[in-house]
């Protein structure tokens, strides 16, 4: 019943086309997000999350029935083509039934050299546009949140020509709307604080109600774009990558403006009344990320169609924050009165930023190395140079982007000789180590340098050929530094060369500070 009510409301607001106004607009959606863009790009953090957010909004508020919406996260180009093909067939069936139809295509991810980059696969933008243009629907809305990138916080790939979307509607795009997150020569950027790309974040905030400039409870295409444009430009104006200007081209072929979301239909969320102070309201979810960022003007009200849950509210003043907490319950519109908020210092900012559950990537490697103590021959008489076999397990972007948390298990053995003033005796030396490391890497197209710290638990033992001497062992924790270079051989395989310097406190025959170096190479596989 609720879905029917949504459809009914949408019918009533589908702008000016008089003939079309009486008809239901059957909406289909293909929503795609992919953090990976192939070996020559650096992974994104929030593309998949952005897609999921847009999917939630369109199915909850945008009149897209769940069976008519397809969400593809980390899929390939063929997955996308298959989904578009299925939607096209279903839209064709609806059209034959006499229904008016609309197709949403949203993409967040890498784009480069005229193609969307979905992992290791590519989808040429011309092909996509042709496919969408050929779809038997009345309205086509394509939203692309992608670009090139060259700096850390930028979203996308290398310094090559950005993907080109013509700013004027092409001839074959009657009834087509295209929104892009940035101009053709700009980077699109992500933010850890908001947990998404600036453009998708502000587009989502607008669709949730922030863009409802008319105050009628419905967010139209133009309202959403205008809101996303203003907020994206404002947020990125001072960024290192430069301001980001979303673009908009359209030919609605007489359909007029289009309602994208109906924030009143569910009568659920937060209502910021007219008398509430103006400014930017941050509505922060339980994870500490901004679910919606609403720029409320003085003397206007805003309805924000948030899903049920507990939210913290923040409004920033020049010298302090105003924060509070509000529970959104199902089927209720909760009014945010100003007296729900209280003054708080900036240190109490509820926005945490930095997601830990996005794009963590595991890799495993195996290799060989060689280590030796510096104080040879005395040191070598204790701990002889040894070849080591090493197995590594690492997770990237778990603690922070481009941080690598690693664990490794290594072992080796060799023969040595204790050559001392009154005794010379050969022995067999064995070493095992269990280590943890934290390193920072700087991914590039093929080469990725990295440096970090490491802590090893070393267990060393030796057995003497002379039975008169008992076996000996030594165990200690050894801190060290590491650095190296990873060379990408394929999208999932790398050759790693690295060096390590470790401190070793030897304290059996008195305290002695020893050091050892290690060179190693290994092959790593990314899962």
């Amino acid at each position, binding site marked *: 019943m609720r879905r029917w009510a949504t459809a009914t409301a949408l019918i009533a607001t589908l702008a000016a086309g008089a003939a079309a106004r009486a008809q239901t607009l059957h909406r289909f959606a293909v929503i795609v997000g992919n953090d990976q863009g192939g070996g020559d790009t650096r992974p994104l953090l929030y593309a998949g999350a952005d897609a999921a957010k847009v999917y939630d909004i369109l199915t909850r508020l945008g009149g897209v029935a769940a069976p008519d919406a397809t969400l593809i996260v980390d899929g390939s180009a063929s997955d996308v083509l298959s989904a578009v093909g299925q939607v096209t067939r279903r839209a064709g069936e609806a059209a034959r039934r006499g229904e008016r139809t609309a197709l949403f295509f949203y993409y967040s991810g890498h784009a480069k050299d005229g193609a969307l980059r979905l992992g290791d696969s590519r989808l040429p933008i011309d092909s996509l546009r042709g496919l969408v243009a050929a779809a038997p629907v009345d309205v086509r809305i394509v939203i692309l949140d992608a670009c090139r990138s060259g700096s850390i916080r930028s979203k996308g790939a290398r310094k090559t020509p950005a993907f080109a979307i013509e700013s004027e509607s092409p001839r074959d795009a009657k009834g087509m709307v295209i929104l892009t997150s940035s101009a053709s020569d700009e980077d699109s950027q992500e933010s850890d604080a908001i947990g998404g790309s600036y453009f998708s974040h502000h587009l989502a905030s607008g669709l949730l109600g922030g863009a409802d400039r008319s105050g009628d409870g419905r967010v139209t295409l133009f309202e959403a774009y205008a809101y996303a444009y203003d907020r994206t430009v404002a947020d990125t104006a001072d960024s290192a990558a430069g301001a980001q200007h979303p673009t908009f081209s359209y030919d609605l072929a007489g359909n007029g403006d289009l309602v994208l979301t109906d924030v009143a239909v569910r009568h659920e969320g937060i209502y910021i009344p007219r008398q509430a102070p103006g400014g930017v309201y941050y509505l922060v979810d339980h994870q500490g990320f901004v679910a919606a960022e609403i720029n409320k003007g003085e003397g206007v009200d805003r309805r924000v169609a948030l899903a049920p849950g507990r939210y913290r509210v923040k409004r920033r003043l020049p010298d302090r924050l105003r924060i509070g907490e509000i529970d959104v319950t199902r089927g209720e519109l909760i009014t945010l009165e100003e007296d729900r908020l209280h003054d708080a210092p900036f240190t109490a900012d509820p926005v945490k930023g930095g997601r830990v559950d996005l794009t963590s990537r595991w890799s495993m490697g195996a290799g060989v190395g060689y280590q030796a103590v510096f104080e040879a021959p005395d040191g070598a008489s204790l701990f002889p140079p040894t070849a080591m076999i090493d197995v590594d397990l690492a997770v990237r972007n778990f603690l922070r982007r481009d941080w690598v948390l690693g664990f490794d298990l290594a072992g080796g053995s060799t023969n040595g000789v*204790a050559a001392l003033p*009154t*005794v*010379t005796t050969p022995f067999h030396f064995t070493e095992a180590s269990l280590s943890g490391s934290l390193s920072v890497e700087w991914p590039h197209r093929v080469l990725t340098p990295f440096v970090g710290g490491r802590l090893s638990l070393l267990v060393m033992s030796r057995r003497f050929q002379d*039975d*008169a001497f*008992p076996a000996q062992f*030594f*165990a200690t*924790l050894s801190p060290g530094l590491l650095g190296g270079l990873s060379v990408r051989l394929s999208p999932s395989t790398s050759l790693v060369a690295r060096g390590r310097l470790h401190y070793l406190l030897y304290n059996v025959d008195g305290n002695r500070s020893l050091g050892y170096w290690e060179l190693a190479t290994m092959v790593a596989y990314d899962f």
Partner: protein
Amino acid sequence: MLALCLVGLGCGNYSNEDLEFMAAVPTTTQLAVELPAAIDTVAEAELAKRTHDAIATVNGALRNVLGLVDGVRVYTPTSRTDDSRTWGPFPDANHPGWTWELIVERDPTDPTTFTYQLQTQNAGAVTGWLLFVSGSFDGAGGARQGSGQVSADFKTLSDAQFPLDSDTANLVDLRITYQNFELAGSPVEVTMSIDSVPDASGAATSLNIVYEILADQSGEMTFTLTGNLVAGPATEIVQVNSQWLPSGAGEATMRVASGDGAGLEQTECWDAAFSATFEQKPWSAAEDLGTADACPALPSLAPLAP
């Protein structure tokens, strides 16, 4: 040490210094004599058998003295200083109530010179530690090359009611001097003197043995026997010199120093099975056998100092 392990600050017994202190005390196998056993002891040549008996005496004495040190040394030192290591006190599993302690010290002015002492104590006694084994080692010759001396005081133990076994109950003391040089053939040369309480038969109270071991386990031994070994009423004192190859084949000469037939000399050769191949026994010509050509070719060794 366990606490250090738990906090990761370094723990273990991994030590080069320990090796030097351990190497200062000779092991049983380092000074022991190896001669293949005779398969048929009934048919064994006479002087070959006496050589085997002398070797058994030597190795037994080493086991009773240095074997104790070997048993202690397998453990990690209990305490360390710059110039000493101490093992124990450890309880003696074979002699309840007795504990042992080994202390090895290095001369701070001469880091290649070591002294050591193995001492025991009865848990119920008030006499304190009883010194059983003491010795020294001068490793000036280089890695495990040097000379040393070991002495064991059995009388002190027996006086303190230490339960000595039957092999050592009559011993008074044991003195060993040795030198161990990595020269050609790696000879180990040992002089061992054992004093014992005379038994009812008035058997020998002193036994002197000198032996030399080469790296290939061939060797030479000179020892003295006392007894009625030559027909006649007197008790003879005879000196035996044996030399053998790694196979066991060897030659021995027994010279009567006093008693009946003083000045007589018996010469015997045997093969790897310890069967006599040449026998020349002036006081019993009927036992003569073969010719000297049947003797094995033995290397020339420097004469042993008796």
